[in-house]
């Protein structure tokens, strides 16, 4: 009897296994359970007990679940890179206990967060690392990564290691079908060039943090959108109006206007949005009070006030991200 390969059902990789895109529901496309710079685990200044970590995290995820009920499912994409405190077995327990789908990353937030072992690795090794984490799993967890994180090192210019990671990510994305998320949308020309060289369609790439305060004046987001890239308005809530804003903060209204510009110009399909909040930060104080639920508490009322309808919100937070996260192998 000839072997017949089973039909591969469309899927999104979550830490507890693949789900159908229709099950994803509301998607917070760029968030963190907990992010810390590599090495921060050595400094007890930031340590939290397991009790504290669950206590800080579970209510936020449960609230997220509550907030998303009208969309059916809740999907939380954790954009934490390999060396940044990514903890897939912890995400699995959180997902299992809260009912929130969690998508984990492979890849690196930027070359300057890749530890020496990976800094010394060539494109082929990095590609195999990413493919393994997407198709076999992360470490011993069995949880498969659903996106590849890449990024620009500090200084707003792509470094050689950043480029190596982008190229490896492009190859792994082509083979496995997961999308790529960039940390920062600055210095995008070399990135666009690499993706073109590798044959990866730019709609498989979300150029993240195009909306943050420090990138303004340096980011050519409309140009990226013209090339077919997706634009991440994913730092909603890091407002300079906060009592102690981070250095990447931005005036709330300015960010909102930037975003609304895309909607007014008919570019809704070019954007994705999120809050980039930490449930329980790992190696920095975090921003008190900022959670993924900012989207519901603050962003949506503001959008509605500016005449954005529910269909548009559904487009940005349900339909577009589901399609984006769905594995699309190119071979």
């Amino acid at each position, binding site marked *: 009897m000839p072997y017949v390969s089973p039909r591969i059902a469309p899927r999104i990789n979550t830490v507890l296994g693949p789900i159908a895109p229709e099950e994803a529901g509301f998607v917070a496309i760029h968030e963190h359970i907990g992010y*810390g*710079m*590599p*090495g*921060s*685990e*050595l*400094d*007890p200044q930031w*340590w939290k007990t397991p009790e504290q970590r669950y206590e800080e995290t579970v209510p936020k995820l449960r609230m997220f679940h509550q907030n998303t009920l009208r969309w059916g499912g809740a999907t939380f994409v954790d954009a934490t890179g*390999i*060396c940044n405190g990514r903890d897939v077995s912890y995400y699995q327990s959180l997902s299992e206990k809260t009912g929130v789908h969690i998508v984990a990353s492979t890849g690196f937030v930027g070359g*300057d*967060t*890749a*530890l*020496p*072992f*990976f*800094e*010394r690795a060539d494109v082929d090794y990095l590609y*195999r*690392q990413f493919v*393994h*984490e997407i198709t*076999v799993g992360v*470490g011993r967890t069995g949880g498969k990564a659903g996106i590849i994180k890449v990024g620009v*090192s*500090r200084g707003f210019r792509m470094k050689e290691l950043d480029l190596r990671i982008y190229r490896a990510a492009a190859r792994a994305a082509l083979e496995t079908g997961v999308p790529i998320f960039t940390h920062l949308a600055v210095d995008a020309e070399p990135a666009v060039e690499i993706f073109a060289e590798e044959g990866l369609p730019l709609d498989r790439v979300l150029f993240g943090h195009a909306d943050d305060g*420090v990138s303004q004046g340096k980011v050519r987001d409309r140009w990226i959108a013209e090339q077919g890239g997706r634009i991440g308005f994913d730092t909603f809530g890091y407002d300079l109006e906060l009592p102690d804003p*981070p*250095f990447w903060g931005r005036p709330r209204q300015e960010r909102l206007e930037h975003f609304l510009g895309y909607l007014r110009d008919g570019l809704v399909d070019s954007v994705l949005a999120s809050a980039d909040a930490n449930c329980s930060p*790992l*190696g*920095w104080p975090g921003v008190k009070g900022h959670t993924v639920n900012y989207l519901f508490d603050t962003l949506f009322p503001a959008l509605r006030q500016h005449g954005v309808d529910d269909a548009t919100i559904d487009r940005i937070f349900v339909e577009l991200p589901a399609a984006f996260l769905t594995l699309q192998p190119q071979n």
Partner: protein
Amino acid sequence: MTATTSVNTVLGPVPAADLGVVAVHEALLSVLPGAQFAYDIELDRAAVFREVADRLTAFKSAGGGTVVDAGGMYAGRDVPLYEALSRATGVHIVASSGQMETGMLGGYFLTPQTDPPTPWPAERFAALYAAEVTEGMVVPRVERRGAAGMISTAVTADSMTPTDESQLRGCARAAKETGVALTFRAGSDPLAELAVALEEGLAAERIAVADAGEQAEKVAAAGAFVVFTDLARAVAFAQAGDAERTLVATGGAAVAFGHDVPPAAYDELVRGVPAELRQQLLVTNPAALLAVKEA
């Protein structure tokens, strides 16, 4: 040395006089930072334990008493594993705080989430490492355990970077403050690097310099210990008159992941050092270095 001077081992303080023959500048488990996340590297703790235990047992059979892991806190150091190894083999294990050269540091130290991303200054390194002596060594994000017995760092081979210098100063301060010794793997100018540590007020006799190369005599003349991984060279150096400043090391690691490090045969140190130098190089000098100096 008084009868009360003690050494911080992973199982608690041990009188310096009880260390016996010491392999003073080794690596037990050596993991290139990041290799713990590599998809094709499996750190099988049972296998690692057996491999290290066998090497410690061979060392003990050859007359060895103590092994010092000089890899610092971010190159594979595994305090609970070392404790179990020490219990199982009866070999004293001393573990170190500190981290290696700039290229081995995580982004937390080099590009912190500040604007601009300024690398850590000396005082922050000093506080982090001193606490590993006074409050205990960290098991990352879990707990502190026993006290570090030495502070270990390294200078970039080509030349000392500003962060190497900050870290070396921080390590020297932590050593001075806590009484444990400082060891560093020298870069291109060992004497100048030693001078940096001395500027922090740490006595030269509390410092060991590895990879001192052509400057070994001058480093010894300045009062610091010189660590040799070339046994023949160490013996020649000691016989030429600097025996009281000479230390030897295998230059290897019991087990390494993510980079090529030759396997360490600690027992070869015992057999390789001529009988007339054994007491000085493997017992007296290490005990003097490791004995915690009263503040």
